[in-house]
């Protein structure tokens, strides 16, 4: 299965306009961390967000996950403006977003299956169906015999595969991956990306991957390039 071509539909799943985000500096000024004029993407698409360090890739993913509110601009997801999300942001994120991190970030005190089940519970899946899907996903990712193992007993590649399983477990409309292969060797990197793409296409999730990795960029049909803002300062207090 391959990711879909850019969406041409009248109502894209994700629409970004005139986005800018500033970080407050210790001296009270604000530094521009991210600037993106326009982006729209639909279900089943796969995008690579590329750019040099400091261009705001992680900030962009955090904005898409409604973890931070952008200083300027609008982000609409399925017609809903993420800027307007207050306390409901967590519930929306749990149901609508799957997240894969560079450093894996599984809960260290829990086994793999428990890690997936906690994520499933947060996302609102019923425990019966979540358990069945979690076991099936872990089996598919070659982790069937390690469901009870804690993360510290697994290789980095195995942990990242488990993190992929956690991100797609509830078939979210959008999966965000922040440098998912940066800590992996070439073989594991290929495996993880293939699985991520395959599972997102299956569930028709919009996949957005922030990456430096050339091999990853090649696998994704669409690139969104962010540039590092240069000397763009904003006096005053950012939101």
């Amino acid at each position, binding site marked *: 299965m391959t990711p879909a071509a850019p969406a041409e539909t009248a109502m894209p799943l994700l629409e970004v306009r005139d986005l800018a985000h500033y970080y407050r500096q210790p001296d009270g000024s604000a530094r521009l961390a991210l600037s993106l004029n326009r982006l729209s993407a639909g279900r089943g698409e796969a995008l690579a967000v590329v750019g040099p360090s400091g261009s705001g890739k992680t900030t962009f993913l955090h904005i898409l996950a409604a973890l931070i509110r952008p200083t300027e601009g609008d982000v609409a997801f399925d017609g809903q403006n993420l800027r307007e999300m207050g306390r409901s942001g*967590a519930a929306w994120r749990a149901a609508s977003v799957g997240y894969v991190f560079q450093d894996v970030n599984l809960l*260290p005190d829990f086994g793999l299956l428990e890690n997936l089940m906690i994520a499933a519970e947060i996302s609102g899946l019923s425990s019966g169906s979540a358990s069945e899907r979690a076991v099936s996903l872990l089996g598919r990712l070659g982790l069937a015999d390690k469901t009870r193992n804690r993360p510290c007993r697994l290789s980095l590649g195995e942990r990242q595969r488990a993190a992929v399983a956690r991100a797609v477990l509830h078939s979210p409309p959008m999966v965000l991956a922040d440098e998912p292969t940066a800590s992996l060797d070439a073989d594991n990197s290929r495996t993880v990306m293939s699985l991520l793409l395959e599972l997102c296409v299956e569930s028709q999730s919009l996949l957005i991957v922030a990456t430096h990795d050339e091999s990853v960029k090649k696998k994704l049909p669409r690139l969104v390039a962010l540039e590092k803002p240069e000397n763009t300062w904003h006096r005053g207090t950012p939101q």
Partner: protein
Amino acid sequence: MRLRTTSRISLRHLRSKPLQTFSAISVIALSTALAVMTLLLARGFQQGLTDAVEPFDIVVSAKGSPYQLVLNTVFLRDAPVGNVRWRDYAGVSDDARIELAVPLAFGDSYRGYPIVGTTPKILRMRKAPSAPPWLDVIEGRWFEGEREAVLGARTASESGLAIGGRFMTSHGMTGAGGEHEEPHEVVGILRSVKGPYDRAIFVSIEDIWAAHEDHAMNIDGGRRGVTSILAHPISYSAAYSFAASYQRDARMQTVFPAQTAIRLFSIIGRGEGFLSAMACVAVCFSLLVATLALYWSGAARRRERALLRILGAAGRSLAAIAWLEGTYSALVGAVIGETLGRAGACAAFGFIGGATAIMPHAPFTPMEAAIPASIFIAGSIGGLAVAAFERWEGDELPLER
């Protein structure tokens, strides 16, 4: 997240940092134990004193220190204050305001167990009108003739004497004063009175007079002296009227042992107040340490909290995890502390009972439960404080690079 899941995450967090968890629980448990023990000791000691003085309404004796009189007559410690004449006893006994008067004579002992010379009238003494007799022979019989003895419960169990056994009494309370010539025979054993008289050996007062024919018991040339008189008045007003009639007596005094014991306890109570204050400080300190331990543990988990938040966990679920960690630590600490405190108090009661013959005891009361309960609540509030502080800190995303 369901409460079951947040609870599971909290418990795993506590288990994954055993040293930190153990330290937090230990300080809570030890301070709870200290507070519980202080309370129980104070209450138990007061109860022991109250139980010991309960059978004694009024004690009449020769003029002297009322504390010494109570220590000697009620607690069977210290030296007698002096003797009064038998006819003084007869005067008390015949007084219309007195329902029952019992003569006591002290001064001898057997291996440290005090010999109490008295008459069978002592068997009529009761703690309250409706209560059973204070002294109850459970084995053998009460003394009837010369050189017969009845053992208190503890004397019987500790001294090795049994019914039919013979022993020689010694002059004085230490046994260093030399033995009397004639042996006594044990004819009965009493049920425990849960007080100092469990260590007594009762003999006929005539035996005491006979043994002291040539010295101490001779008062004003007469051979029949009495160390103290236990008097049971017919009423409260009669008691005070009776006591007032001795106020200007140059030779004799009346003492209400209950009042004297209260005065004694108020002196000890000042120490107890200080101990209670120290226990409160220890409890506050332990809760602070436990709260800090929870905070440090939480700070080490900022990454996990951020992860759960990114996964979509609600702020209240993250707060519940921190709160439950505090609550569980406080609960376990309070339960262990209550157990340790009670065990420590029981051990101390045993020691005090052995050393002083006062039998302190402290039955469980709601006041005692209030200590671990308030520590549990305070620990729970500490968990909430940590949760609130974490939430305040929570805007930083440690996962962000």
